[in-house]
């Protein structure tokens, strides 16, 4: 059968879609795009913001026009089953917990070497035990569950054997890794095991919560095979707002942690997320966030306008900030965002970076990503996707760098 898989949202969702696709392919199905009029369209939805809800519904409607049958899964489907079923008669909703084996009865496989990305995601964990007041994800994904170490190792072996040089470890809250396993382990243990038992050249740790950064973890992040990249969500630079968000740290603690990381691994790429316009956020409190983004050595950050999510504590809070003010504050950060990225990129000129090639433009120029999470054009002939090319950074075009290969060409 011709099947199309469409995906919205986070890295976990994307990694799960990869497994769904891998299982389908293994069962003899043909993966096509929506414009090729598939027999079945599978939509892996997201509900993290109101916008993702809207995009999920939009995708379902598009699928209903082009596809005989529509199967909807993912977090939006998890929490809005009835609403989705009422959208069309051919729709089927499948819960997150069963999504990996859609139309692949019998195949139990959760580990795959199938990936449409040059730097494949490896899901190591699902669910979250925290209760950030704005976040809907625990409702959709439940408590933390870890993928057994053995399965993670096997997946990485598979990717390694298929010629990949980097894996990105993903999860909803990977700092909780291993606490639920029969033989308790933690994220440091997992990273150490990966370094010992696999030969994969690069391992990227996606997002870490600052309360989970400890000496042991910093020691391992310093290992050359672990990417020079830490993503550490800040969410707000104001202590009152952090408290309302139920984030369990203060601004000064966050700064201390960043300090430790930078001292330990100088030049590391440091990324963060901020939510702008949280209920009750005053202008001054917003400035505190902006000040933090200015002062700390972030190499990039993502800005999210606050989105009211049903049945969250924040949705019940008074003083919701008007949508246009949220938007305005976001755009106030845009310029800073580019400036931060430019500053970090500028620092790379003359440095040696290893680039994993991910795509080509029409002129066959190769674009890839470095260990410290920079996008780099690699000069010279077309380098194959997935290949690792050592380069010296020669210059910068906007937020993209250009690199000159060290050997060959």
């Amino acid at each position, binding site marked *: 059968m011709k099947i199309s898989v469409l995906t919205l949202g986070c890295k976990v969702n994307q990694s799960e879609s990869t497994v769904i696709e891998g299982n389908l392919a293994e069962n003899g199905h043909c993966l096509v795009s929506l414009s090729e009029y598939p027999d079945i369209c599978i939509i892996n939805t997201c509900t993290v913001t109101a916008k993702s809800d809207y995009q999920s519904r939009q995708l379902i409607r598009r699928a209903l026009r082009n596809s005989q049958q529509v199967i909807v899964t993912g977090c939006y489907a998890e929490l809005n089953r009835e609403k989705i079923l009422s959208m069309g008669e051919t729709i089927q909703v499948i819960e997150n917990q069963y999504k990996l084996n859609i139309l692949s009865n019998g195949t139990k496989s959760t580990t795959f070497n199938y990936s449409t990305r040059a730097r494949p995601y490896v899901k190591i964990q699902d669910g979250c035990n925290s209760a950030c007041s704005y976040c809907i994800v625990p409702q959709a994904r439940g408590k933390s569950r870890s993928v057994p170490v053995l399965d993670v190792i096997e997946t990485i072996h598979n990717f390694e054997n298929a010629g990949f040089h980097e894996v990105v470890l993903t999860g909803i809250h990977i700092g909780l890794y291993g606490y639920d396993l029969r033989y308790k382990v933690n994220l440091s243990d997992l990273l150490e*095991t990966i370094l*010992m038992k696999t030969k994969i050249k690069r391992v990227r740790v996606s997002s870490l919560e600052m309360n989970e950064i400890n000496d042991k973890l910093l020691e391992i992040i310093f290992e050359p095979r672990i990417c020079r990249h830490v993503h550490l969500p800040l969410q707000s630079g104001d202590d009152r707002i952090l408290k309302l968000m139920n984030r369990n740290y203060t601004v000064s603690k966050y700064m201390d942690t960043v300090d430790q990381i930078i001292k330990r691994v100088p030049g590391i790429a440091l990324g963060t997320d901020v939510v702008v316009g949280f209920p009750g956020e005053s202008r001054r409190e917003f400035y505190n966030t902006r000040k933090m983004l200015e002062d700390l050595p972030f190499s990039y950050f993502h800005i999210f306008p606050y989105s009211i999510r049903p049945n969250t504590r924040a949705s019940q809070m008074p003083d919701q900030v008007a949508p246009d003010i949220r938007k305005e504050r976001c755009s106030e950060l845009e310029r800073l965002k580019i400036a931060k990225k430019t500053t970090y990129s500028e620092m790379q000129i003359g440095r040696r970076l290893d680039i994993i090639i991910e795509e080509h433009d029409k002129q066959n120029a190769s674009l890839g990503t470095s260990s410290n999470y920079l996008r780099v054009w690699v000069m010279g002939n077309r380098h194959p996707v997935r290949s690792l090319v050592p380069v010296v950074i020669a210059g910068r075009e906007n937020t993209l760098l250009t690199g000159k290969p060290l050997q060959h060409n």
Partner: protein
Amino acid sequence: MTKKVYIRTFGCQMNVHDSEKIMGVLHKEGYEKTDDPRSAELIIFNTCSIRQKAEQKFYSELGKIKTWKTKKSALTIAVAGCIAQQEGANIFRKAPHVDLVFGPQNIHELKHLHLKRQKRFTVTEDNPHIAEDDLPVRRESGIKAWVTIMYGCNNFCSYCVVPYTRGRERSRPSQNILKEVKGLSDSGVKEITLLGQNVNSYMTDLDFPGLLHAINTIQGIGRIRFVTSHPKDLSDTLIDAISELNKVCEHIHLPLQSGSDTILQRMNRGYVFKEYMKKVEKLRNKIPGIAITSDIIAGFPGESDEDHMQTIHALKDIEFDGIFAFNFSPRPGTIAAGMDDILSQHIQSERLTEILSCQEKITEKKNKLLEGTIQEILVEEKGRANGQQVTGRTRTNKIVTINSSDYSQGNFLKVRIVRGRLHSLEGEPA
């Protein structure tokens, strides 16, 4: 005043560790170890009977000190280990100057030795409490430690004397093992080697993979090794455990003994070559880069040229990282010793030479392949070449020397391999 004891150890790691236990008990009795046998009041031979050669060597060394006894009446001579177990009081007939004979299961009998000094004292009884009753241990190294997890063997390979000298399999309670490892970790030990004649058949409240999982959680220990695994008992869950436990080293010693199914059967090994090969493939599949080492017996009774060639082919097919190969040695009381087609020494030696030279090329090639790679070593000793070198082993149990003295014992160090040689690797700090 402290009394001095000299102990001479033959044979396997089990025996070396038994000597540490003997020292543990004697230390409590007021003895200190000496490296000079002439200054000792007590001389112990911890013997090995795995091969005739080891036995001959022991008797010759024992003979050399016969005259000491007449010069020094206070001297006590004791024979421990597998020959003691096998020969018992017969040793007194062969060597009347011996005072004590005690088997590997009777080390605890050294307690209150001063009360038992009446002459000619023999203990070789089966000790049903050996797994439960722990003895104190005086260890040789502060960085690496052996930990016994089980005693004895039930396999009765037709050539092997161990089931007769060390009795049936008994597993130590896991709590005792964990407590010992925790204690070792607290005292600074970085690497432990779990010992048993056949660790895969460890079974208490935990099986062997379960035991590895439990030990892996102990803080401070950086590496876990184990010997020996019987190929027939190497389970998927053990392979999984090696694959998923960060501290368990990527090395397995998996004695093949012969590449011929006929000979394997006569050896009573319980597997055919194909099954062995499958396990090797599984290991390499799940644990890329794992080092596999082996034991080979050259010239087993009835081994034809064809059988021998199958062993050579097996070596070439498998490409072990290293092997221990020996001529067949008839051990009294074993089935193989009674076989009527024992080969001449000449044929055995010829085959052994061929086996060793075949493997040498493979070992050297494998070591060469490591050139340029980065390996973690545990720095073990300083001192060779005027203190300008340190040595350590990789997780795959290969010896690496580096020309630098800046690193202290017990540290884990990343090194780049610059040269692979036959017997060791040369590295530099990475």
